[in-house]
């Protein structure tokens, strides 16, 4: 950046080559950057909010079908993913803290931990999608009204046998005729769309963190200028917050 030459507010050798000429000092520039991110997050709140509101409308309309749909999800995998994401947010906060001190090596370490946990989250999510596909929970032609019998050969017991024993006997989520309700598909639509959009946000976040690590490798961040880390940190914590709401709303409808 060639802002130093045109910067009239700070002396040329203030060590702050990143200060743009329209800002008084680094603090003002940083606040503008975070303010812009908060503005973007406000639009994101409304973006996810639209989904949550339409979810609320249909859940009020058909509470029983939503409960049945929720019982077909694996709450322990959702809970595990919540814990993973909260932990990743913690490491992101530590990464931002390291960047505030201008410690590029610790920034890389904490970002690596954050990315590893994000990949673990997506792995669990992918496994969940596979199990749901296997159980015929994908809306549309492949949606199975008859839940598959819980045999030792099923994908769930192959992968999750110990979990099933731990959580007790499998109870098929079906009405008195042993059938899933057709409208459970509506819940599954919300589930797949909301979690897929959330996962897309996570993929974008992983990409941004990779970019940050490349910058940190070049020792780009200093105590005076680390706005990208701060801003991506805000984004990542927001993605975490969305999941904090998605988890109880989708997975925990046992006693709605």
């Amino acid at each position: 950046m060639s802002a130093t030459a045109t910067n009239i507010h700070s002396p040329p050798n203030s060590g702050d080559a990143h200060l743009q000429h329209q800002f008084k000092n680094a603090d003002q520039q940083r606040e503008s950057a975070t303010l812009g991110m908060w503005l973007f997050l406000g639009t994101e709140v409304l973006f996810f909010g639209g989904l949550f509101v339409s979810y609320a409308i249909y859940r009020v309309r058909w509470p029983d079908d939503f409960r049945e749909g929720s019982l077909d999800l694996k709450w322990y995998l959702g809970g595990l993913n919540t814990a993973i994401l909260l932990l990743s947010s913690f490491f992101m906060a530590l990464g931002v803290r390291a960047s505030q001190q201008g410690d590029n090596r610790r920034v890389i370490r904490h970002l690596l931990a954050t990315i590893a946990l994000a990949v673990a989250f997506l792995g669990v999510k992918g496994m969940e999608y596979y199990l749901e596909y296997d159980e015929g929970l994908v809306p549309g032609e492949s949606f199975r009204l008859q839940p598959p019998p819980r045999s030792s050969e099923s994908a769930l017991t192959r992968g999750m046998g110990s979990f099933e024993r731990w959580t007790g006997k499998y109870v098929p989520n079906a009405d008195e005729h042993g059938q899933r309700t057709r409208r459970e598909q509506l819940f599954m639509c919300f589930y797949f769309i909301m979690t897929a959009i959330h996962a897309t946000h996570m993929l974008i976040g992983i990409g941004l963190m990779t970019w940050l690590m490349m910058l940190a490798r070049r020792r780009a961040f200093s105590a005076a200028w680390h706005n990208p880390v701060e801003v991506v940190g805000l984004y990542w914590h927001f993605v975490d917050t969305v999941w904090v709401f998605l988890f109880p709303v989708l997975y925990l409808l046992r006693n709605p």
Partner: protein
Amino acid sequence: MAEVKEHIAAPRMYIGVLIALMILLVATIITAFIDLDAWTTAHHLGAGWNTVVALLIAMLKAALIALFFMHLKYASRLTWVFASAGVVWLGIMLTLTMSDYFTRNHPPGVNAKGEPNYIVEPAPPGHPSPRIDNYPGQPGSYH
């Protein structure tokens, strides 16, 4: 714009927030498995408390993340305005939408709880019986 000097928090604070978040996660799972409505309806406190508690815990977690992880606690007033704007507008959207749906005469012939609003005459012989959505056990019901 009055800029705010950056606040570098102690790592101890982040660990404390993480522990609080994990405790709240366990709390939300435990309360989901307890049928709170069994107690509240017996004491005339209404139904739907599991949802209320789950959302309150989620809001508490979101507040912890925003205040400490996202440094909102140390941010300027202007940042607070920006951060609350989205939530306020979401609240307006949710309140107005749900006030419509909670007070609406739900077609076809059911209220918000899925109970029929009126008794359907049985269909004359040779005609398909009328459907009432979401009312299990009715002949011809779509369930």
